[in-house]
């Protein structure tokens, strides 16, 4: 059992959730309230990682962040090491391929708030910030949490993009999903079996938590 691979997966998931929660709150809320006609295009773009093969995403990330790209060169000049095949590169890739998993549930959460409720808040003299903190976030909470949980679970499970962008570097970019693949190729069935079982348990736990939570909140609001 390779605990460092599990730790890398968990760290990657935590970073991804942290970044996407912020991004999701801004973008998801904006999209939920927007009546702009071009909104569909933005939504379609953000949903792309759901349907694109991981290899396509991985390829474009390699092209966009690799040593030959402007972004890759800028990063290397600032930080002194390349962006791809590093943990930071994995975080970037992970944020991109989790965009729909975070933003869509958050957007649904804000969309479910009736317009009247927001208008009442405004009429009562609440500032935008007060309305967000006291009215909208508590009402959209379910969507936000399920976005976070889905992102967390999906990051643990991602394989193709991680392999392409991260390589298979133990202690740096070897996530638990990659480590299982690696162990099978090393004819180490015992370790592969243990890690697969751990990943299965964590995933089941996370998803159960997500369902339990939505049931609870459903009752409260229902």
């Amino acid at each position, binding site marked *: 059992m390779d605990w460092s691979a599990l730790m890398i997966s968990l*760290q990657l998931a935590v970073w991804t959730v*942290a970044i996407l929660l912020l991004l999701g709150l801004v973008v998801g809320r904006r999209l939920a309230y927007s009546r702009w006609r071009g909104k569909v295009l933005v939504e379609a773009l953000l949903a792309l990682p759901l349907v694109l093969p991981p290899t396509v995403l991985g390829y474009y990330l390699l092209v966009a962040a690799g040593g030959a790209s402007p972004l890759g060169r800028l990063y290397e000049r600032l930080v002194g090491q390349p962006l791809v095949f590093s943990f930071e590169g994995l975080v970037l890739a992970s944020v991109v391929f989790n965009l729909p998993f975070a933003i869509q549930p958050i957007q649904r959460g804000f969309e479910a708030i009736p317009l009247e409720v927001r208008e009442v808040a405004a009429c009562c003299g609440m500032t935008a910030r007060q309305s967000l903190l006291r009215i909208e976030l508590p009402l959209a*909470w379910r969507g936000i949490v399920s976005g976070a949980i889905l992102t967390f679970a999906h990051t643990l499970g991602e394989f193709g993009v991680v392999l392409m962008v991260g390589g298979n570097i133990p202690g740096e970019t070897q996530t638990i999903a990659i480590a299982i693949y*690696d162990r099978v*190729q*090393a*004819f180490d069935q015992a370790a592969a079996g243990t890690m697969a079982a751990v990943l299965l348990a964590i995933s089941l736990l996370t998803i159960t938590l997500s369902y339990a939570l939505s049931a609870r909140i459903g009752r409260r609001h229902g």
Partner: protein
Amino acid sequence: MPVRAVVLRVILRSPIKHSWLVGLLVTALLTLCGSVTAQEAPVVAAAADLQFALVEIAQSFRQETGQDIKLSFGSSGNFAAQIENGAPFQLLLSADEEYVSRLKAHGFTLDDGVLYAIGRIVLFIPHGSTLKADASLRDLRDALVDGRLKKFAIANPEHAPYGRAARSVLQHEGLWEAIQPFLVLGENAAQAAQFATSGSAQGGMMPLSLAQAPALTQRGQFAPLPADWHPPLRQRMVLLRGATGPAKAFYAYLQTPAARAVFSRYGFIPPDER
């Protein structure tokens, strides 16, 4: 308003009991802080045929020097591509020479590198297969016609040297065209070996160094193929730009008689050069 106050407020006002949420946050923080361990050990990229031999050599290196190194196994071609894209490997043990000279030409290596072994390729037939481990490939030729062969595993010739060797062998015997519909391609030599032993393929070609390892000998029989049926698998290793002390020490260790003895035990032929 300070950020912490906002966060606290959000948590307190949320309709969720906060106990588990706080638990989650604490876990997250612990995860983040807990294990950003010192990234000192150099990462060595090694051809997949070294899967067993190099693990053993690395272990004795660790015991003798107290220095840690990390091993990553894969296809030589993939590693070369990753190194050109900036992957932070410090030492590459390729299964051929071409990738090393290409990396050198593009300025990614410290020197010319050293030939460390000559590889051999074998025909592997798993238990339960109706094929014979016959180095002349006569039985394989028959099996192609009489329908006994359903799947045959080799490494991908596009980026795995052992895949290229397998292709050369099959071409030498005039079987390359006929076997096309039956081929399953492993991403590297170890994956080809894993496919060949999975029970879903009737046979495959893999490095002698893998076929001889205990994990595989119990799964089937093998026959080494004539070395003159394919261009020699001259395996070269090279220090990469940015290699540090421990990587250089390991590079030197790999050239000691002790390390060479391990390579020989796994079926590698010592290089005649030097």
